[in-house]
């Protein structure tokens, strides 16, 4: 953890109105919840479904993607990573710092909004809201590791990350049986299921397996990112 790198990463993420998009995503979730709470009577009925299908499946991967690639990929993309790499700082410190910044952003802009959204929809059940917050956090950590590794490995990190987040996590992770076992969304849902008694939250993966896979994906992603950053070839932009 290096404070200077963390500070610079924060300013890349939020400088020049760029952070606006990061705020828009949770804002859409919250506005939607407020609108529904005002217009529909029994929001508690579909609160878990909404949190899962819109929150965990769309908002969380997108916020994570923006945070993780914004912290690392954009710097590699415009070449300014050279100035960082030429300093006597361990590559592992760089990766870990940037990943931690991304996770901090996810906590503020995805996990907290999820808890608030859960409370807006169903005020009588703070346990479920908090459970979804915790699920968001573990999913966010795993996504950060995946997208950080992707940022170092490919110049098209954002596009590839989007295809993964939308097709694999969004479509396959919800509908195709085999893909469910290998989806961050289902793993985090297992955590949510463990922490809440809400009847409709059901994951296809058992909690111990989900936890092992979450930890494994996080460790592999971060290790891969560090080892790739050690031998990073700065390609010329196409």
């Amino acid at each position: 953890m290096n404070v200077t790198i963390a500070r610079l990463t924060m300013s890349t993420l939020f400088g020049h109105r760029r952070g606006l998009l990061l705020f828009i995503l949770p804002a859409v979730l919250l506005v939607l919840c407020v609108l529904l709470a005002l217009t529909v009577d029994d929001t508690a009925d579909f609160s878990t479904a909404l949190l899962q299908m819109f929150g965990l499946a769309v908002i969380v991967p997108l916020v994570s993607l923006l945070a993780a690639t914004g912290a690392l990929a954009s710097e590699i993309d415009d070449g300014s990573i050279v100035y960082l790499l030429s300093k006597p700082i361990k590559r592992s410190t760089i990766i870990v710092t940037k990943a931690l910044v991304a996770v901090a952003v996810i906590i503020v802009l995805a996990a907290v909004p999820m808890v608030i959204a859960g409370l807006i929809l169903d005020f009588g059940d703070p346990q479920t809201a908090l459970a979804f917050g915790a699920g968001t956090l573990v999913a966010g950590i795993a996504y950060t590791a995946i997208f950080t590794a992707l940022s170092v490995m490919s110049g098209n990190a954002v596009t590839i990350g989007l295809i993964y987040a939308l097709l694999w996590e969004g479509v396959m992770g919800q509908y195709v049986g085999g893909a469910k076992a290998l989806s961050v969304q289902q793993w985090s849902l297992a955590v949510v299921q463990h922490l809440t008694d809400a009847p409709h939250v059901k994951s296809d993966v058992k909690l111990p397996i989900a936890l092992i896979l979450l930890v494994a994906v996080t460790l592999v992603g971060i290790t891969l990112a560090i080892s790739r950053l050690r031998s990073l070839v700065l390609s010329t932009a196409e």
Partner: protein
Amino acid sequence: MSDQLRPPAAGVIHDIGYRHYDGPRLGRFAITQALTVSSLRHAYGLGRSGKSKVMPILLLAVMVVPVAIMVGIENALQFDNPPLSQMRYIFFLQAVIALYLASQAPQLFSRDLRYGSIVLYLARPLRRTDYALAKLTALALALMVLMGLPMVILYAGALLAKFDFTLMTKEFLSGLVTALLLSILLAAIGGLIAAATPRRGFAVAAIIAVLIVSFTAVTVVTAILDPEGTHRDVASRYANLGSPFSLVEVLASFVLRGGGDWVPNTTQGLVFAAVYLLVVAGCCWGVNARYAKVARG
């Protein structure tokens, strides 16, 4: 700035003191046309590196291959009716269209800003409005190719399978109209977001976030306001204004009097048309204003 860019008689910036060229010069129109064509080629990676061909060609293949297989099956098994209409196909594969827009709009708009080559374009007789329009047109045409190609294949397959000619032609044409409406709207939105930032990765994420989040929000709201799927509820109808895809779907069924899940009445249709025009005009104005700012430096 644009006033200074009127094609001058002599001493324009590309005359750097070598032998003079006094012959006829192609004007603004020819430059705009050339820029449109080259941008359209770039949108599919033609004339660029092999790596940048991968994504557009892959997404085009995702659009075309299922249709080709379907046409093969409907001909081999001699179906009586076509398995799906052209209009449905576009909205069925909208995630692919969104990904294409997200991956290619920044290629057309952000790169010139990031590498500063926009200055060179604007130093020519080309006006900045021409530049913006050329890029937007190229993006709309590229999207049109992406959606039109599977439609042409579906149409050709339908004719080969000897389905009803008039019906098929009508369906093909309404598919094309829908695709055109969608291309223009998506190109305007994608162009505005891509032109706003020189960072490619950021533009990609921003475009996809706008398209996917708005569409998911609309789907969720519609599902909650109208749980039985009757499309009677007025509020759930107007909820479709919230995302480009659903907006075009409704607008197309208004213009073509059918094809979508429900046909809006005249007031609703006019509201959708007005919103469509406002968004397109607003985005084009935004792109132009953005380049005005770039040109001022």
